[in-house]
Every structure is written in structure tokens, then in C-alpha cells.
């Protein structure tokens, strides 16, 4: 499994810690629950377990590449918050919830594993830990027994509070894991995770609370009836993710027009976009900024299409500054005509500007994304496809020489780190 590898430098990765903690919790829960008289209301446990397993089967990838199983998560939260079932008290313990959820997740994920589409272990682990948190607060402390006999309104309020806290915990664990792998600042990653959670997360949380409340009257029928609306939400997200992916694939493909036309070296725009995004992540950019950066990096050479004669090798780094600026402006004009990518156009337009001028401070009109593309583009023009260590070192050294005006030192620093990290991963 991909997520279960310790870091090459010997330390424990966040993914490993989270996965191990979840595995430990799951084993304890299953052992305790499997003891004689350990399982309370096996029929309800089985129904919710089946629901969670099916939800896990219908897992989706959210825009931005996050794995999610909205239906499974909603089902798990509902089982965690269940106080009454067809007007009978539900007194199953916290560990039983964890055990049922863990087993159901394993069952639901098995077909994916067989088909070679296994989700990374840490996303599963994270979801189990979040459920563990919810039952820890709600069931283990006796809060659940307290609200069971209170009015419906109070019960609903408590459930909403717990669901919100659970989603927050989930985002924090996700951010901790991601910050470790991407080398990005924790605060920036947490902001990204929280933003990604707000939409689908609140729908999942509300559905979980709704099912828990409704099951007191409707019993098992709450599950099949109310899975349909959440499916609808999930469907919209899936289509959204699909069109986002399609946009990226299309821009990647069309960005190769400059290569086919002989204007740039093959693979140049792809390499520039990959390294730019790695640098942007390192510098703590938000998901939305990273997407704009990726688009801009892919299309940064599109202005060259309007040149009659290609620049030798397509290396804009060797062209005169005024010519570089003109090409950048032409590219920005093309992109601006879309009417929807103004941010991207600005980034492309400013990519040829120095980040500061003589006797002046940092030029704030040059966006961080433009500075990244400027430096990464120069680096790739110098290194090319070869990727030999000497050329990489020489190229970085040349960028460092240009740090006074041309290349933002923060960007060059982060770039060096990003290159080092990718070298470590391939090693």
C-alpha cells in the first residue's frame, strides 16, 4: 500500500502515523466488539455497516484530487450519533461504532483494491479516526444518553455541534499529513483542507445528523430514502471534478501546440507547470491560486505562436528582455479573450518582469505566480530534458546570480527544495 511507507530519511511520515493509529484503534474495537454479548443490536449494526460499505464503493475524487466517500462518511456519522431506532433506545458503545465502520470500510474498499484502484491508506485511516473522535465525544462521555431524552431541538443542536467538530478534526489530520508530504506550511494546507471541506463536508455532516434523527421514527428506511439526495450532491461534485480534469487535460494538450509548431522544446510546458506547482505549494499558495498557476505555466509560451520565426530551441531566457515582455503580452492577450481566465492572463503577462528594479523595493505588481513561472521557465530552458545533476546545479547557480533583480530569492530557495525533494522521491 502506497501510504504505509516510512520516509526515506528514517523518520516516520504523517501518513504512517495516521494509518498505524487507525489500524490499532480498529483492531482494539473489533476484538472488544467480537467478544460474547459485545455486539448490541446486530441487525442495526449490519444495516449501517452495509450502507457504509456501499458508500465506500461509490467513492469519488473531489476537484483537487481529494478522495472522498460522502455516503460512507454520512452513514458512519449517523451510526455514531444514533440514539433511537424506531423509538427504541440505542445503547451501542463507542468501540462498537468504530468496529462496524472499520469492517464496513474494509469490505467496501476490497473491490477497489481488486480492480487496482486502492485509495491511499491514510485517507481511510483519517476517516476512521474522525469517527473515533465523534463517538469519543458523543457516546463515551454519556452525552448521547443525556440528549436521548431531551427535546428534538436540543438533540439536533448537539448533533450539529459534534458533526462540525468532527469535520474540523478531519481537516486538521488531513492537513498534518499533507503538510508532511508536500513540504508546505501547515497553516496554508489547513486553509486549503478547510475550504475543500466547507462544501461537501457540510452536506455530509448534515445528512449524517439527519439520518440519525430520522431513524428514530423511520428506522432502517431512513437509509435508502435519504441516500438519494446525497447521491445527487455527489453526482454534481463528480461532474464538477470531471470538467475540472477535462479542462486541465485540454489545456495540457493545447499547450503542446507551441511544441508541435516547433516553437518550444518538447515537454517544456509540462515540466514548467509541474515544477511551478511544486514551488507554489512549498510557498503556501491556496488551491485556487495553484490552479491558476498551473494554467498559466502551461500556457506561458502561447504568445510565441504569433511569432513568424521560432526562437532557437524556444528558450525565451536567451531572448532580449523587451522581446520576452512582448511575447508575454501577446500570450496574455490571447488568454484574456477567453473572458474567464483574467487571473491567468495577468500571471502570463507579468512573467517577464523583474521582481524588483534598481533603487526600488520589491515590485508588488508582479504576482508571486509570475515570479515562480519566470524562475522555473529559466531553469527549464537551461536544464532542458537532460536532468543531469551537474546541469541542474549550474542552472540553479545561474538563477542565484540573478537574484538581485530577476529572480525572487524566496522562489529560487523553494525551487531548490522542490527539486531536491523530487530527486529524493525518484531515488
Amino acid at each position, binding site marked *: 500500500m502506497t501510504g504505509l511507507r516510512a520516509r526515506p530519511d528514517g523518520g516516520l511520515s504523517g501518513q504512517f502515523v495516521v494509518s498505524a493509529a487507525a489500524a490499532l484503534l480498529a483492531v482494539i474495537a473489533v476484538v472488544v466488539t467480537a467478544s460474547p454479548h459485545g455486539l448490541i443490536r446486530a441487525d442495526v449494526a449490519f444495516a449501517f455497516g452495509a450502507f457504509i460499505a456501499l458508500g465506500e464503493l461509490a467513492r469519488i475524487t473531489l476537484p483537487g484530487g481529494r478522495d472522498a466517500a460522502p455516503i460512507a462518511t454520512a452513514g458512519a456519522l449517523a451510526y455514531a450519533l444514533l440514539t433511537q431506532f424506531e*423509538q427504541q433506545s440505542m445503547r451501542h458503545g463507542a468501540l462498537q461504532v468504530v468496529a462496524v465502520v472499520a469492517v464496513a470500510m474494509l469490505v467496501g474498499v476490497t473491490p477497489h483494491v481488486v480492480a487496482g484502484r486502492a485509495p491511499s491508506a491514510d485517507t481511510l485511516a483519517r476517516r476512521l479516526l474522525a469517527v473515533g473522535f465523534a463517538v469519543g465525544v458523543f457516546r463515551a462521555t454519556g452525552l448521547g444518553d443525556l440528549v436521548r431524552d431531551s*427535546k*428534538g*431541538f436540543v*438533540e*439536533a443542536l448537539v448533533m*450539529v455541534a459534534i458533526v462540525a467538530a468532527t469535520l474540523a478534526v478531519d481537516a486538521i489530520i488531513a492537513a498534518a499529513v499533507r503538510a508532511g508530504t508536500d513540504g508546505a506550511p501547515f497553516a496554508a494546507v489547513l486553509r486549503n483542507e478547510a475550504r475543500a471541506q466547507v*462544501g*461537501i463536508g*457540510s*452536506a455530509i455532516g*448534515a*445528512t449524517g*445528523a*439527519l439520518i440519525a*434523527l*430520522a431513524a*428514530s*421514527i*423511520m*428506522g432502517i*428506511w431512513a437509509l435508502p*430514502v*435519504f441516500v*438519494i*439526495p*446525497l*447521491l*445527487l*450532491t455527489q453526482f*454534481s*461534485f463528480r*461532474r*464538477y471534478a*470531471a*470538467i*475540472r*480534469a*477535462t*479542462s486541465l*487535460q*485540454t*489545456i*495540457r*494538450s*493545447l499547450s*503542446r*501546440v507551441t511544441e*508541435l*509548431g516547433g516553437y518550444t522544446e518538447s515537454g517544456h510546458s509540462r515540466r514548467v507547470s509541474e515544477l511551478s506547482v511544486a514551488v507554489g505549494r512549498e510557498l503556501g499558495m491556496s488551491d485556487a491560486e495553484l490552479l491558476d498557476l498551473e494554467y498559466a505555466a502551461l500556457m506561458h509560451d*502561447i504568445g510565441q*505562436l*504569433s511569432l513568424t520565426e521560432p526562437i532557437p530551441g524556444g528558450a525565451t531566457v536567451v531572448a532580449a528582455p523587451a522581446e520576452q515582455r512582448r511575447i508575454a503580452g501577446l500570450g496574455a492577450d*490571447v*488568454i484574456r*479573450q*477567453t*473572458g*474567464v*481566465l483574467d487571473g491567468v492572463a495577468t500571471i502570463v503577462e507579468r512573467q517577464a518582469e523583474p521582481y524588483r528594479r534598481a533603487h526600488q523595493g520589491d515590485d508588488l505588481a508582479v504576482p508571486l505566480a509570475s515570479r515562480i513561472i519566470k524562475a522555473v521557465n529559466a531553469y527549464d530552458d537551461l536544464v532542458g530534458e537532460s536532468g543531469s545533476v551537474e546541469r541542474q546545479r549550474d542552472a540553479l547557480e545561474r538563477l542565484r546570480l540573478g537574484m538581485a533583480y530577476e529572480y525572487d530569492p524566496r522562489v529560487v530557495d523553494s525551487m531548490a527544495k522542490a527539486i531536491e525533494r523530487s530527486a529524493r522521491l525518484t531515488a
Partner: protein
Amino acid sequence: MDPLPLRARLYVIAVGALALPLLAFAIVRGWSSISVVDLAFLAVLYVISDSIGAKGSRDTVTIALGSVSAMAALPLLGGWGAIVLACSTAFANDSRPLVKRFFNTSQLVLAAAASALAFTLLGGKAISDDSFPYLILPFCVALAVHCFVNGALVSGIVHFAADVPLRHVWHGTIAKSVSGYVGYGLFGLLLAVLWSPRGAAVGPAAALLVLLPLFVARWAYAQYAEQQDAYDRTVRTLIAAVETKDLYTRGHSERVAAASVLIARQIGMREDRVASLRYAGMLHDIGKLGVPTRVLQKTSKLTEAEYAAVKLHPVRGLEMIREIEFLGEAFAGIMHHHERLDGLGYPMGLRGAQIPEFARAIAVADAFDSMTTTRSYRGARTAAQALEELRRCAGSQFDPSMVEALVAALADTVWQDQSEALFDQTAPEWDDAYEQLPRAQFDHDDPRASETHVPSQSSAQ
């Protein structure tokens, strides 16, 4: 806005004449049994959903939002209450003309009445301890009835007002919103269960909990729609940028896409395939970037070797965009858009039915646009002349059914005559720079180009 045609006015009056007495009867008959507090809260919810729906009226999901309160009313207020509730939509805060509002409210009253009838006949009652599963069947049937009556009445008004065939209205807008309608209608049942004092007893606050997933779904859908729109614009712009390389083809891809869509709709192609075909039309010549500019802009007749280079462009195009997974069927359209029915086309020399449907449609659209735009070696032909030429080549180069589809589609549509439109952009006396540019003697999309380059023994066929 145009005044409604007489037929549409009569239709509105007829629907209103059915709805008003029904409403009056429901008020008299049901008033004593309806909980006024619940009615008021549901009415507020209904008005809010309906106002939101009216603003983004293109968005099929928002249209369905109102079905939450409409359906929740059945178990909460009873059948009479549901009918009374429907009239609250008359107070929705929107800018629609009075007649539309009147029609909308009348049709919702009728839909509510029909669904209440179905609900009651199947034994649907207010929420109680033993409601489940017995309530689900009457509720679902009532929802289906509500959806059907609503859809049918709305189809009617679109049919009469805009003179669109009923079948098209139903398949176009109504069928698309059914899934949303049904999904949100089920939320109505959840709302009733949570709200009812004999249910989970959360009270009107339950509406907040129920609405949250709804708004998220709506938001997700809006994001999707926005992204789809952004995607279309981006593709179009990038293609336009690419076309600047080749002076002949300004706007060509866009027009070929449009003509392909005309053909596809005429032969009754499914909408998702039409969308795919539109992208195929848009991207069909993208591979020309791989053909040396020198050849594309050559002023003398092409040698066989140069023509061979041109013939590679469909394959090149496919290579370029193969990564764009969703295109699917469009790949075949791009790859084979220069095949000929008699097997003499390129790149593979496919014959007749071997040629994918997409490719046969694009081939016709492509040639049509080539002929109706100005080329240096000939002026633009009129649409009528071009269609005549297409008919001449039908059976050998083109699929006759596609040609006829284009002829029929153009009879219904106003095709902007490109001979004039493009003349404005590139008229030599207007644009000195254009005058100095090299003029190719050849457009690979022109049906005559295909004929001159076909091996000689076959041109007798």
C-alpha cells in the same frame, strides 16, 4: 418581451379557471384542520425556494427546490393544506410578468391537488409512530404525480408561447430536471419526519438542517455549470489563437462545430453525443499545426509529397488531444473527417459505413464551410451553391443522409452568410497587410481539392 400569442393566453386562462375554484374549495374545506403555524413556516420556505428558482431559471436544479415544501406539506398539513400552500408562490419575490406568476401559481395548485389525491387514495396520512414503511409508497407516487403534472403543464405553456413541439420541450428541459425534482421531493419527506411533533419533533428548525445539503448540491451544480462554461470559452479562444497561424481558417473550427451540430440535431442524435460532436468539430483541424506553415501557405500547386504532409493532419490532431479522456467518440470524428464514402479518402481509406458517424457529419460541415468562405483562388459561394456541390459529391465523397440533413437543417435556420461576414474581416482593399501575405492556391477542405488528388483511375467512378 413579446406579448403572449392568443393560444397561450387561452391556455393560461383555462389552467387558471381550473385552479381557482379548486383553491377556494380547499380553503373552505380544509381550513379548520390545517395547522396555521406549520402552514406559515412552509409558505415562507416555499416562497424562498421559488424566488431563488426564478432568479436562476436556466438552472434546472433550482426549479426543483420548491418541491421540498410542496411535498413536505402532504404529511404535515394534509391534502387540503398542500393545495392552500401552493398559492403562497404567488407572493414569490421575482420580476416575472404578472401573467407568468399567475400561470405558475395556478399550475402548482393543480399539481398539488393531483398529488394530494394520489397520496390520499393510496392511504397516505400524517406522520405517526407506525408511518414507516407504509408512508413511502403513497409519498413517492404523489411525488411522481406532482412532477408529471407540473412538467406537463409547463411543457404546454412553452409549446403555446414559443411554438416549440411538445416532444422537444419534454425531452429538452423537463426530462433533465426530473432527477433533481424527485431527489428534492424526497427531502420533503425527511423534512416532514423531522418537523412533525409525532416524528423527531425538531420543529421548523428542521428546515435549516434539510436545506443545507440542498444548497450544497445547488452550489456544486452551479460550480459545475460555471466550470463547463469556462471550459467552452477557453477551448474556443485557444483554437482561435491557433487559427491565426493559418489565414484561411479564421473562425472555421467554430463554424464547422456549429454546422455539425445542425446536422446532428436534424438526424436526431442524442444530446450528449451532440455535445461531443461539437468538440470534435471544434478540434478537427488542430493537427494542422503539425503541417509546416510553408506548405499551408504555399502559393503554387502542392506536390504529392506536400499533399501527403497535409494528409497527416487528422492523425497528428488525434495524437495531440488523445489525453483528453472525455472526448471519447470525438476522437474517431477527428481522425476520420477526411475519409470518403468511396474509400478514396485519408488517412485510412475507410469506406461507407466503416466511417464513424461523427466523421461523416464533420466531413459535410467542413466542406460546406470551406466552400462558403472566400479563398484566394475563388470567391465564396452562396450557401445554395455549396449545398448543390455537396449534393453532387454525395455518395462518392459524402454520406447523402448527412448532406440532406444539412440541407434540411439550413432550411430551418438562418445561417450567417460567410461570404459577406468574412469579406469584412479580410477584404484586401481594407487590409493592406493581408494583401501582402502569401496566398495558398489550395484549401484541403474544398471538395474539389479532394477530387484533384484522388488517383486518376478512380475519378471515372
